[in-house]
Structure formats: C-alpha cells, structure tokens
C-alpha cells in the first residue's frame, strides 16, 4: 500500500501532468500506473501464509473464499481509484486525451498484471515469485512491444488501440475465477 502511495506521489513530480496529450497519457498509464496492479493485488493470494496465520484462518467455519473475494474487490477498487486520481488530475490540468479510454485501459492492464502475480503467488505460495513474474511479464511486453502476444498485447494504448484492451478482459476474468477457485480449495 505504501509502495503504491509512493508511486502515486512520485508520478506528478516526474511527468508534469499539465497539458498531457494522448500519447503521453498512454505512456504514463501503461508504463507506470499499470504497475499499481502488481503492488496492490499480487500479494492478496498469500496473505495468510505470509503471516503464518493460515492454520487458524482456514480452520474457521466462515469460508475463506468470502474473505478473499471481499479483499479482492477492495484491492480492485483501490487500484481503480488510484489510477483515476492521476488520470483525473491530468485531465483537469488541461489534458487533451479521452478520459475513459486512458482510465479504463490502464485499469485493465493493471488488473491483468495484478491477477497474473496473484495467480503465481497462490500457486507457488511465494509472494516474491508473484512480484517477480508479474514484473517480468510487464517488462517483456515493454521490450517486445507485443511481438509474442499479438492481439493480447498488454500496452496496446501505446499503439492508440483501445479496442485491443477488450481482448485482455478474457484472461483477466479467467485469472480472477481461477484465484477464487484456489482460495475456495484452501479451506
């Protein structure tokens, strides 16, 4: 959370959110704000293991999956609002970009990165692995510019391709359901 807050605090210092055009907004969103998904969502699958509380938590009568879903919804909401904070600030400062495209496009990238990290964390029971692989995926897409992922290119806003983001909703949904299933199995 603190890491995410620090990231949000640093962005206006580095980028100057005044008079931002679409191209600059896409770069800020895809190459910086999307990382919020990794910081806010990746660790959710493994919190109990992290603090050695899994024996107590999983033995309770209340299904753990309810807690997990609630936690996930909170994390998704915080991610959405955090991205919105920066995007709205840029728009209010004279930005000339379509607000919803940048906001939702960046949010989808953040979700995919976060859910990917969360899946790795849940399966490997190591939040380090979750962070590592989600950052690796992020950088891989950065440096290969979608050469290997094609229509599932993570940073499609950089190519002015908002419809390409809708292709990512399928893996986002799949990973969300997979993680809910894993959480349910842990009980």
């Amino acid at each position: 959370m603190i890491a995410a807050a620090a990231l949000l605090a640093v962005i206006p210092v580095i980028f100057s959110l005044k008079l931002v055009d679409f191209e600059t907004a896409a770069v800020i969103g895809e190459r910086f704000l999307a990382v919020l998904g990794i910081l806010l969502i990746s660790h959710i699958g493994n919190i109990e293991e992290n603090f050695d509380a899994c024996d107590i938590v999983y033995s309770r009568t209340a299904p753990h999956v309810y807690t997990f879903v609630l936690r996930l919804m909170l994390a998704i909401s915080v991610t959405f609002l955090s991205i919105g904070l920066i995007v709205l600030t840029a728009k209010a400062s004279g930005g000339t970009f379509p607000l919803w495209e940048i906001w939702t496009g960046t949010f989808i990238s953040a979700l995919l990165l976060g859910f990917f990290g969360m899946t790795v964390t849940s399966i490997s029971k190591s939040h380090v692995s979750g962070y590592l692989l989600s950052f690796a995926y992020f950088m891989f897409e950065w440096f290969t510019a979608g050469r290997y992922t094609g229509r599932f290119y993570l940073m499609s806003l950089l190519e002015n391709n908002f419809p390409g983001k809708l292709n990512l909703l399928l893996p986002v949904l799949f990973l969300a359901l997979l993680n809910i299933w894993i959480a349910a199995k842990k009980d």
Partner: protein
Amino acid sequence: MFIKLLNKEIKYLLGSISSYLLLVVIIAFYFSQFEPPGINDSIKPVSEMEFIYNTMAKDYENGSLSSNIITGAGKELSSEDKKAVKKAMDNMKGDKEVVGLIREKYLDILGKLDKELGGDTYYGDRLREEFLRISLNYGQKPMDDSQDRMRIMLKWMSLDYRKGEIYSYRFGMARTIRFGENEKQAIRDAMNKMKAGGTNILDFPPKDFQDTRFNIDESEFADILDTLDKKLGGMTRYNSMMRDGLMTTSMTYEEAMVRFNTIVEKDMITNAYARIFADYMGITAGFFPVFLAAFILIKDRRRKMHELINSRKVSSTVYIAAKYMSIVIFVTVIYLLLSTHATLLFHNFAKANGYRIDYFAFYKYCLIWVLPTLLFTVALGMCISIIIKSGVPAIPVQFFIWFISMMPLSGDYRIFKPVIRFNQVSSHDVYLQWSLAINTNRMFFLFVSVLLFMLTVFIWSKRRSGSSFFGKGIFYNFKI
C-alpha cells in the same frame, strides 16, 4: 567460515523457486532481445547494385514484385515478366562473382526492366530513389559540415516556433512545454543570432534555409543552443545531450564499409555485439535481482531464526557478505553461461564466413559493464530491506531507479544511471567516444555498491547488538 556460509546460501538459492524464476526471466529476455547473426546471414553492407540484384532474385523466385509503401501491393509477374527479370539479372552479373557495373549501364538495365514490367515499378527512375531510401539504410552518421548542422537546427527552431510547443525529456519521458511569450522570444533571439543580417527569418518557410550561410563558429553555435535550451526549460532537443541525434545524415555505402571493416578488424566482431549483449543483460541486472536481494535478510526473521543467528560467533560482515556474494555469484554465473552461448553462436558464424573473433569479448563486457549494475542492485535491495525491515519497498524503489536509466538508448552515462544503455552495433570508434563516461559510471557504481554493503553490515550489526535506534524498521508498525 565465510566459505561455509557462502556454500549454504548458494544451496539455499538453488533450492528456491524464486531463483529459478529469475533464471527463466533472464534467459527469456536474452533470447527475445539479443539477435546475433545466423551462420547464413551476412553483416557486410550491401552495395546498391547488389541490393537491386538481390531484389530481382527475390522477385523472380516469388513470382511477384514485393509489396511496399511506395508501390503498394506487389504486382504478379507473368512468365514474360519473369524472363525480363532473369535477363536483367544476367546482364547485371553474368558469370561474375559480384555485381559491379559502370553506373550508366546499370541504370540502363533498370530502365529497360522497368519498361518491360509496365512502368511504375521500383526499378524505374521515378520510384527507385525512394525505394532505396526506405529499404537500404546504412545507418546515420554525424553531419560533418557545420553549416549543415546549423541549417538543420535553424529548421527545427522554425518548426517549433510555428508549432508553439516542444517536448522536454526528463527521466526518459517526454513532457510538452507550451510556449508563452518568453519562450517565443527566446527562439526568435536564437534564430536571429544565428542568421546575421537582420532578416526576419520567421517570414521564411523552413525549406528556404537550404541556401543560408552562417557567420558564427562552432563555439557560438553551441552557446546559442545551450542558452535556448535553458530558456525553454531544459532537456529539450537543443540540449547538448539530445541535439547530436538531430544533426545526422545517412551513411553512404563506402562509409558503411569503413564501419564494417572497423568492426571486423578492431572489434573482431564480437566486441561490437558484446556491447549490445551487455545492454540487454544490464536491463535485467538493473532490476530483477532485487527480488532475491530484498528478501534474503528478511527470511531469517520470518522463520524466527534471527535470534539464533544473532547469538552466533559469526561476524556481521562475514554473514552479510555470504548472503550478498551468493546472489551476485548466482546471477553472474547465469550471465556468464549466456555469454558462452553467444560466443559459441559467433564462433559458428565466424567459421562459416571466414572471420576472426575475440572469444573473450562477451565475458569482458559482462564483467565490466553488467557486474557493477548487479552489485549495485543487490546492495541497494539488501540495504533498503534492512532499513525498513520489509522487502517489498525495495521493489518500487529499484523499479524507479531502473526506469530512469532506460532512456535514451545510448549516449547518456551520467552517474545517476546504474544501467549502461548502448543499444547499437557500432564500431570501436563510436564506443571510444563514450568509453570514459562509461568507465567513470562503472567505477562510481562499484564504489556506491561497497558503501551500501557497508551500511547494510553496520545496521545489521547494530540491530544484532540490540540497539534501540536500529531495533525497529522505519515502518515496523505498518503491514505492507
């Protein structure tokens, strides 16, 4: 004791899933980014005639002209067309090994071919120059003529003035600066200083600067640009680090051959490619090892072993050094193995093409360029984790530091950039321009790595002895 601890730490790393994920990530990055020439590839520049001949051969084999942005979709070749192409190929080369004709005969052959193919092909006079400009690019070189350099910068000033805005680059990101009256006046002043005579140059469209002659020398020119950059907010295209990239012109075939010969003779090929290899590996070294470094000290506390370890006789320096060196050795071995793979590829390439290579090039650049980045990343990750008593904050900090190092792709080696970017296969002479800055940068980060390591040892030692100041991390009560 140190060796024993080091062995234990390396064994721990070899049993950790994170280590293998790091290995996979680095290898994936290597194979996706680094593209050495294959055995059948050629790195020698191709002359215009050889290129046209090869194009004819490809068109003949495919049975159609290739599609491109100049002529659009490729035209299908009839059997008559193919015969015409074959005839042109025979006229160009005949039974010679290489294509080499006097230019008039070469143009005559192409003209006839174009006519026989129905005209408007890229073999004809009308489209050939544009086709060659797009398809046959020998790279860029700095402009030799100072008048040309001044002309191009004057053109940029005129364009920027008319547009009313400019990009300023900070941390590799572009910010738009919209001009107020001060900025516009700064551009007017710069343009008037460059062109003496009082003519209102803003009345002229940029293309009319072609015949302009300037009466200032290089030093005045540099001052004008530096002043303009400062008045526009800094780090614009007029900055000394950015403007060289604008004052370039296309290389000719002869110049490309000179560069090629330098790469073959001075760099022995592998040194030129080792620099770009080090560029790609440096990108991974500047960030991913933090995932091991930031948690290697935290895991003792998490497993509640810290009290037992604190009570042991082992010195703090030996203990921290064993952990530090285990990560450095593990990751360095990965880079050395990839260096071996790259060397083998070039060995096969050199053998097939009759070149000599430097077999130590990849190892040299791996150790001199990449290792300091790795040492810094690991030291910083450990230091942050021990100060904050949590590994996660080290990740965004390292990400930020890595991020500001990414751009530009070469030419900026200031001491706040831990990753060396040299994203070009260039000759030894080009590297020499930057070698002092690069070596200074590497020495600086070696020094900083040692400082960070010593700081980590100091804090850990104080904490171990029960010091109340260092007993709790900064965010002890915050659960991240």
